[in-house]
């Protein structure tokens, strides 16, 4: 044991570790050593007097140069990326509207002045209040907004048909008479 409390093996291992740090970091003086650890022209003093075994140096250099890092195929990389993205999507909590794909039940309350006669045609009865909406991304959200605007415009469009004009006139005159009778002027 030495004064540092380390035996010879540990000290050798420590020296090897330092050497590997430098070797893998590409320290210039180490690159001047030959393929088997012998000192080059500029590397004198770094080799023969070093406590590190020449054979260990040579083996280190061989492994540093000869062991490649592998990369999987591009196809595998992308396939796994897709799987991870799917797993991530499943983990995500609902964030802002339009930022994720979630099925959400949106409560719909009838607007004031709601006209049941002018309700959306409902062929199969599935258009009941409180139906689920599938909100899938910003494009879908935009499409819903456009659909809402179109629906609003359709509901409030000026009708050119004589029947509709007559109905509106009758409705208007009735409500006008009711208002006047309420004030006692008629």
């Amino acid at each position, binding site marked *: 044991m030495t004064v540092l409390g380390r035996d010879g093996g540990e000290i050798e*291992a420590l020296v090897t*570790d330092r050497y590997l740090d430098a070797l893998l970091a590409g320290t210039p003086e180490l690159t001047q050593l030959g393929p088997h650890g012998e000192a080059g022209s500029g590397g004198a003093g770094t080799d023969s007097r070093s406590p590190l075994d020449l054979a260990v140096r040579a*083996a280190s250099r*061989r492994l540093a140069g000869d062991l490649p*890092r592998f990369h999987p195929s591009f196809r595998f990389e992308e396939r796994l990326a897709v799987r991870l993205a799917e*797993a991530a*999507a499943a983990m995500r909590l609902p964030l802002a509207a339009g930022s994720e794909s979630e099925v959400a039940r949106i409560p719909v309350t009838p607007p004031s002045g709601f006209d049941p006669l002018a309700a959306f045609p409902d062929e199969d009865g599935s258009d009941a209040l409180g139906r689920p909406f599938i909100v899938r991304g910003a494009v879908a959200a935009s499409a819903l907004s456009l659909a809402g605007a179109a629906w609003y415009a359709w509901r409030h469009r000026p009708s050119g048909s004589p029947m509709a004009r007559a109905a509106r006139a009758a409705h208007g005159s009735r409500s006008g008479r009711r208002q006047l009778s309420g004030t006692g002027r008629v």
Partner: protein
Amino acid sequence: MARPVFGRTGAAKDAVPRIAHLDRDRPLVDAARRDPARFDALYRRYLAQVYSYAYYELGDHHAAEDATERTFLSALANLHRFEERARPADGEGASTFRVWLFRIARNVVLNERRTTRRHPSEPIGETTIIADPLDVESRAVKNEEALAAWHAVGRLPGDRRRAVVLRFVDEMSTAEIAGVLGRSEAAVRVLIHRALRSVAKDLGSRS
């Protein structure tokens, strides 16, 4: 990169600055925790390293792909359980996330070995290396010296081989390898030193 950050923990004027070492992957890990879709950046950063480790351990591309897939899926699912524990001793460039990820990879590979009953010290066979003549990776290691080094590493016993692969292929620090293998740094240094002696003797006797 693990970089020291100075900050005051209290409002007292003479409070001692606290030094916290940040994991170099902290921004990516934080982003992935907020939004799991951001895990992709960590995946791209460590894919080749994890795959290489699995390939050196299992000696088969398909098995390595399976292990890699399981590693990353498991890491994503358990990211909330990861605790960053970077220390000054971990040094520059340390990543405790990488250590955590490789611990998962090590467990996955060990499980794979157990299920397939592979011999732990079986070297990667030459047939695997030259199986596909169009494979760039295979061509890279086809020369005689590279094959000799490859086989010498393959003949090392379990943890010595793992330590060498993590040190030379994945370029981990001794502290990181200690974290992955669950050993002390001194033990890892000795493991690698002995592994290099074995490799040197092996290469010397065959040349």
